[in-house]
């Protein structure tokens, strides 16, 4: 019954029929997705939409990393988690939700903090990485690890009513350090726990991260290498800006890199790699 037709089973043809119809995707694109592996770092507001749409589209393997557990203050934006999962590992919770939608994907939940000791070993097993983290130290870590491992990095971020999206280390484009050679002063960094965020803003950016991943993996190419999308939810505006190219003097992706293995990123940034939701004292 599960006869292979051009590498797809009848079940797969039924499930993916509406995207198989797209000439830009088709059977070839579906097979490319099926043989691709994506790692999402962070199982929060950006991960929830990106993970579920990648799972729905039929990615081969989806890894999700998070060290944290589900809290009630996550649920206004982290829509894969549930009231019944409060206290459960976020990576496990996110994977369980995706599994119920598409059990044919190979899921790998990592309940651990990504750090210099494990990042390369994990990232090397994936074709592409989504930065869905919430702090500066992990963003530098992830950037450097993706450069060292040669993986494209689809980076999203959101705060308050704004979102940003770009793709690093793809087709000769720049990396995070090319844009931001120095980390920001810790007192200028606001996370979602401190600044707040409207839940649907990471929803939109996370969807766009999944889209760029699908386009890269199926050979359409990304629209956001050396470009950044700025989204302002209050005025409903999207703006695309043109970024600098890869910097020859970049310490990690440049012509003579000084960073050839992962460093201590909390020290480099002067900030912890955590954004633990704190109990809000209102009034």
């Amino acid at each position, binding site marked *: 019954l599960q006869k292979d037709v051009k590498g797809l089973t009848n079940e797969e043809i039924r499930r993916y029929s509406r995207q198989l119809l797209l000439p830009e995707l088709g059977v070839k694109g579906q097979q490319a997705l099926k043989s691709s592996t994506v790692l999402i770092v962070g199982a929060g507001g950006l991960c929830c939409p990106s993970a579920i749409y990648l799972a729905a589209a039929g990615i081969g393997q989806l890894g999700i990393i998070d060290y944290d557990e589900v809290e009630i203050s996550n649920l206004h934006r982290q829509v894969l988690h549930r009231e019944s999962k409060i206290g459960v590992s976020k990576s496990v919770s996110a994977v369980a939700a995706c599994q119920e939608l598409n059990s044919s994907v190979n899921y790998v939940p990592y309940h651990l903090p990504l750090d210099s000791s494990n990042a390369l070993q994990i990232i090397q097993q994936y074709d592409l990485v989504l930065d869905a983290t*919430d702090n500066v130290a992990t963003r530098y870590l992830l950037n450097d690890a993706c450069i060292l491992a040669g993986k494209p990095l689809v980076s999203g971020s959101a705060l308050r009513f*704004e979102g940003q999206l770009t793709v690093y280390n793809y087709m000769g484009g720049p990396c995070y350090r090319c844009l931001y050679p120095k980390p*920001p*002063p810790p007192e200028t960094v*606001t996370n*979602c726990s401190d600044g707040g965020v409207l839940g649907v803003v*990471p929803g939109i950016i996370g969807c766009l991260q999944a889209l760029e991943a699908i386009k890269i993996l199926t050979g359409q190419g990304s629209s956001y290498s050396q470009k950044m999308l700025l989204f302002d939810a209050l005025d409903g505006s999207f703006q695309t800006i043109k970024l600098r190219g890869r910097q020859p003097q970049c310490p990690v992706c440049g012509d003579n890199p000084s960073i050839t293995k992962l460093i201590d990123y909390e020290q480099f940034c002067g900030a912890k790699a955590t954004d633990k939701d704190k109990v809000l004292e209102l009034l």
Partner: protein
Amino acid sequence: MSIPITLEFSGGAELLFDRQKRHDIDLPKQENPWRIQELLPWIRDNILKERPELFMQGNTVRPGILVLVNDTDWELMGELEYNLQPNDRIIFISTLHGG
């Protein structure tokens, strides 16, 4: 003749400017062309509302702020040396890290 330009602040940078994202300003006439190098201290002294150290470090913007000249990264336009033209749109974007 003064030079009319538009400044925009986003990603949280607007919080230093009374939450106002867009500012239409006229730079006063001066002998030499206005460069971004001169614009930055002018902004700090004339429209910044609080905590200048969160906007500038030394003679440039603090790390984590992207500067755009008409939707293009200032790195492609000469950075501090760029000569401002009438009706230029200069954007200061604080990078977001939340997720």
